[in-house]
C-alpha cells in the first residue's frame, strides 16, 4: 500500500526497511459509515487501525456513549492495545465516514518479535513510550523532550599550566589564548585560577609577579559529567554562585563550560536574576529582580527545558527571593528565634508560574516580640507587591493563625490529623509539604519530627487522609463531560491524585523530602513503590504539568489582563495526536495508582 500509508509516523518509523515492506504487504483498507462501530468492547479486534481519512472516538462501552476518552483523526492509530490484550475494553466508533488501514494482529506480533524498539512502543509502559518518542520524535512537536547535554554546548579547551608558572607568565598566556581562566596542575590535581584571582593576588594581596600561580588556585572544583544535562550545569552555577564548571569524564579532564556559553544556549537570565537577588540591598532592588522571573520562565519553556528542571530552578529562585526578603524585613536579632516555612506547591518545589504564597512562621516557645505580627503583615504585603498573589485561603504569615510557637504548631498539626473534616484535612495536606526557607531551621525540624512520630502506625488517620486522592472520579470520565465535550480539569483528574497519594505514602513512611518526584524516588528506594510504577507516576505528573503550563501561558498571552481564569483546564483539541496519546496513557497510570491506594488504605466502598 505504498504512499497512502505514512511510514514515517511513529511507531512505524521505528521499523527497518524489510519490516516496513512487511507492513505494507499486509495492510487492508476498510470503509466505515458514520456512526458505525469499528471495534466493539469485548470483541477481538482484527489489528491496529490507522486512519487514512475520518474521525473515530473511543468511548465507554454500553449506554453511556457520552463518556468519550479520546478522538482519533487522520494518521492516528488505535486498537493496538486492544489487539495485544486480545479484547477491546472500549467501543471505537466512526464519528464521520472513515477509511482505515488495518494491520492484522498476527503481523503486529511478528514485528514486535523482530523489533524490540517497536515492541516497546506498543507494549511497554508509559515512561518508556515517552522516552522512545523523545529519541525518535523527529518532525513532531517534541521540543519539550529535547534537552541538550553538556557535550552539545561549547566545552572550552582548558588552558593548563604546570606548578611553578609565575603570575606574569600565566597572565600573558591567558591574554594570548583569550582565556579568562586557567587550570594549574599541582601534583595530580587541578586547580582553577580566574582573572579575578590574579587581580586580587596582585592588587589586593600585593603578591610578587613571579610567585607561583598554583598557590592562588582553588582546588575544590565543581565538576560535571559530559553526559549530564546542560541545564543541570546552570542550576549548579546558580546554586553555588560560580561561573565555570569543569567537565570531567571519570578521571579525565575534558574542559570547562562557562556560564556565558550556557546562557547563550538558554538565552535567558537566570544567573543574572540570581545575582541581582543576592546583591539587592533594598526591597525595591529585590522587587525588580523578582519581576524578571516571569520572562525567565517563558524563555525556559520555549527553549524546551524539561519541566522538572525548570521547577527545580524556580524553586531555588523563589526560595532565595523569600529568604532575601526575610533578611531585609526581619530584624537581625530576631532571626535566630523564628523560622519561615513555605508550604503547598511552593514547599514541594513544584510551582511554575508564581503561585499563591502559602507560608507560615514558627517561633521559639516563649519568645517575646511585641511587633511580630506587624512585621509579618509587612512581609506578606511585600511579597504581594513582588507578584506573589495572596493566598485565597489566607494561608500566610499576615494571618495570625499561621504564626505559631513550636508548641502551638505541633498541637495544631495533631488537631487537624484527628479531625476528619475537609478543611482541616486540606490545611494538613498543605502543612505537611512545608519546607523551611529562612531563619532557624531547627525549630521547624523539631516540630516535623515530633509530628511524624506522632502519626506512626495511626492507620485510621492514613486511611482518612488518603481518601482525598480518590475523591475525584476516574479522571478519564472528565473527557466529554463538559459543555464543549473536549476539556478536562487536569488538577482534579491527574495532578492532585498523584501528589496527594504520594504525599500520603511519604507521610506514612516518614520520608522527609517534600518534592513529589523526590518522594517517589524515596518510596521506590524503600521498596514501597515498584520501580516501574514510580517511574510511570513521575512521567505522568510531568506530562500533566507540562500540558497545563503550555495552555496556561497561551491563555495568559491571549487574555487582555494577563490573567487566566481557568488555570487547570486542558483543551483537548489543542493537543496533537502524540500528546493526546500520551495524556490518555498518563491518565491510565493515575487510574491504576488510585486503585493501588484504594487497596492499600482500604478505601473501597
Amino acid at each position, binding site marked *: *500500500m505504498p504512499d497512502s500509508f505514512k511510514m514515517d509516523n511513529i511507531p512505524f518509523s521505528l521499523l527497518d526497511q524489510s519490516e516496513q515492506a512487511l507492513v505494507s504487504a499486509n495492510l487492508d483498507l476498510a470503509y466505515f459509515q458514520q456512526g458505525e462501530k469499528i471495534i466493539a468492547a469485548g470483541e477481538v479486534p482484527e489489528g491496529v487501525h490507522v486512519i487514512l481519512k475520518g474521525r473515530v472516538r473511543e468511548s465507554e462501552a454500553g449506554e453511556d456513549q457520552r463518556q468519550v476518552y479520546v478522538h482519533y483523526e487522520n494518521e492516528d492509530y488505535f486498537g493496538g492495545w486492544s489487539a495485544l490484550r486480545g479484547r477491546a475494553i472500549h467501543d471505537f466508533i466512526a464519528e464521520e465516514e472513515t477509511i482505515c488501514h488495518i494491520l492484522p494482529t498476527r503481523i503486529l506480533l511478528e514485528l514486535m518479535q523482530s523489533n524490540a524498539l517497536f515492541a516497546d512502543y506498543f507494549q511497554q509502559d508509559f515512561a518508556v513510550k515517552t522516552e522512545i518518542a523523545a529519541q525518535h520524535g523527529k518532525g513532531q512537536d517534541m521540543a519539550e523532550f529535547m534537552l541538550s547535554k553538556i557535550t552539545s554546548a561549547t566545552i572550552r579547551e582548558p588552558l593548563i599550566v604546570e606548578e611553578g608558572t609565575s603570575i606574569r607568565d600565566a597572565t600573558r598566556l591567558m591574554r594570548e589564548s583569550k582565556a579568562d581562566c586557567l587550570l594549574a596542575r599541582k601534583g595530580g590535581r587541578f586547580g582553577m585560577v580566574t582573572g579575578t584571582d590574579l587581580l586580587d593576588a596582585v592588587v589586593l594581596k600585593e603578591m610578587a609577579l613571579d610567585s607561583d600561580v598554583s598557590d592562588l588556585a582553588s582546588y575544590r572544583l565543581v565538576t560535571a559529567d559530559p553526559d549530564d544535562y546542560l541545564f543541570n550545569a546552570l542550576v549548579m552555577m546558580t546554586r553555588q554562585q560560580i561561573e565555570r564548571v569543569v567537565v570531567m569524564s571519570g578521571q579525565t579532564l575534558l574542559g570547562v563550560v562557562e556560564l556565558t556559553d550556557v546562557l547563550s544556549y538558554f538565552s535567558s537570565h537566570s544567573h543574572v536574576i540570581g545575582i541581582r537577588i543576592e546583591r539587592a540591598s533594598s526591597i525595591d532592588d529585590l522587587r525588580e529582580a523578582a519581576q524578571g522571573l516571569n520572562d525567565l520562565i517563558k524563555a525556559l519553556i520555549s527553549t524546551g527545558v524539561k519541566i522538572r528542571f525548570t521547577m527545580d530552578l524556580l524553586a531555588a529562585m523563589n526560595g532565595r527571593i523569600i529568604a532575601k526578603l526575610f533578611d531585609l524585613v526581619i530584624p537581625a536579632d530576631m532571626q535566630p528565634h523564628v523560622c519561615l516555612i513555605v508550604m503547598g506547591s511552593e514547599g514541594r518545589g513544584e510551582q511554575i508560574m508564581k503561585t499563591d504564597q502559602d507560608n507560615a512562621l514558627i517561633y521559639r516557645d516563649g519568645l517575646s516580640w511585641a511587633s511580630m505580627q506587624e512585621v509579618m503583615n509587612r512581609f506578606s504585603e511585600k511579597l504581594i507587591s513582588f507578584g506573589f498573589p495572596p493566598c485565597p485561603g489566607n494561608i500566610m504569615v499576615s494571618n495570625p493563625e499561621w504564626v505559631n510557637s513550636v508548641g502551638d504548631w505541633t498541637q495544631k498539626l495533631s488537631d487537624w490529623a484527628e479531625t476528619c473534616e475537609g478543611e482541616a484535612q486540606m490545611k494538613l495536606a498543605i502543612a505537611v509539604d512545608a519546607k523551611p526557607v529562612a531563619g532557624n531551621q531547627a525549630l521547624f525540624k523539631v516540630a516535623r519530627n515530633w509530628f511524624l512520630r506522632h502519626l506512626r502506625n495511626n492507620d485510621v488517620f492514613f486511611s482518612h487522609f488518603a481518601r482525598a486522592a480518590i475523591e475525584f472520579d476516574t479522571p478519564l470520565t472528565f473527557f466529554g463531560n463538559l459543555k464543549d465535550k473536549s476539556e478536562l480539569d487536569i488538577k482534579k483528574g491527574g495532578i492532585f491524585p498523584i501528589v496527594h497519594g504520594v504525599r500520603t505514602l511519604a507521610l506514612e513512611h516518614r520520608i522527609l523530602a517534600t518534592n513529589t518526584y523526590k518522594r517517589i524516588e524515596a518510596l521506590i528506594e524503600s521498596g514501597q513503590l515498584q520501580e516501574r510504577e514510580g517511574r510511570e507516576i513521575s512521567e505522568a505528573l510531568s506530562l500533566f504539568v507540562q500540558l497545563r503550563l503550555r495552555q496556561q501561558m497561551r491563555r495568559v498571552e491571549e487574555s487582555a489582563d494577563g490573567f487566566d481564569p481557568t488555570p487547570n483546564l486542558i483543551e483537548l483539541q489543542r493537543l496533537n495526536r502524540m500528546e493526546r496519546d500520551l495524556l490518555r496513557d498518563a491518565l491510565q497510570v493515575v487510574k491504576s495508582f488510585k486503585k493501588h491506594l484504594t487497596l492499600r488504605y482500604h478505601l473501597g466502598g
Partner: protein
Amino acid sequence: MIIPRTIRRLQDRRTHRNGPWANLFESYDGDEVVSLDCETTSLDVAQAEILSIGAVRIQGKRVKTSDRLDIRLKPPHSLTGESIKVHKIRASDLSDGIELEDALEQLLNFIGNRPILGYYVNYDIRVIDKFLRPRYGFGLPNKAIELSHVYHDIIKWKHVGGDVDLRFDTIASKLDIPIIQRHTALGDAITVALMYVRLKHGQSPTNTH
C-alpha cells in the same frame, strides 16, 4: 466480424466448459469483486500494449490491499514518448518486468470468476482480451462493473438536467475519497475500489454540484 461480447461469452463458455479454465466460466456466487486497472501505451485498443496491471479484491466494506496483484511487464516495443508522458513509466522502469504470458496467467488466477470492477472497465477488458484470445482462445468471461455507471445511477436522481461529470478526479472528490497514487495501475485500482465501497455502503453524497 464484430460479435457482441455476450454472444462471444456464450460461445467461449461452450468451448471451454471442460477445459483447464472451466472454473472461470462458472457463475459467481461469492461476495468478492476485483477492482482492476491496466496502464497501457495507447488509448486505442488496437495499438495498446500493456505496461502494468494492478488489481485488488474487495470483500464487503473491505478493500483487501494485502491481497493484491501488482504486475509490471517487460517493456513492449511500442513504448513511445507519448505514453511515457502519461504514465511516467520508462523502459528502464520495466527492466525487471515479467513476460506477458506469465502476467496473464497470474491475472486469471487472481480474478477467477469474480466480477471485475473498473473505471471505463471495458477498455481494460478489451485490451486484455486482445492478448488473451490468441493465447487461450477466450476473452475474460467475467461480469463487468463500471464505476462511473454505479456513480451515475446514484447521482442522477439528485441531479436534475444537465450531464453528470464522470471524470475520475471529480468522482473521487465528490465521494471525498483520497486519490492514491494516480496513474499507477495499483493506485487507481485501490482508489476505484474505495469509491465503489463508499457508493455501495455509504450514504449517497449530498453535494453533487
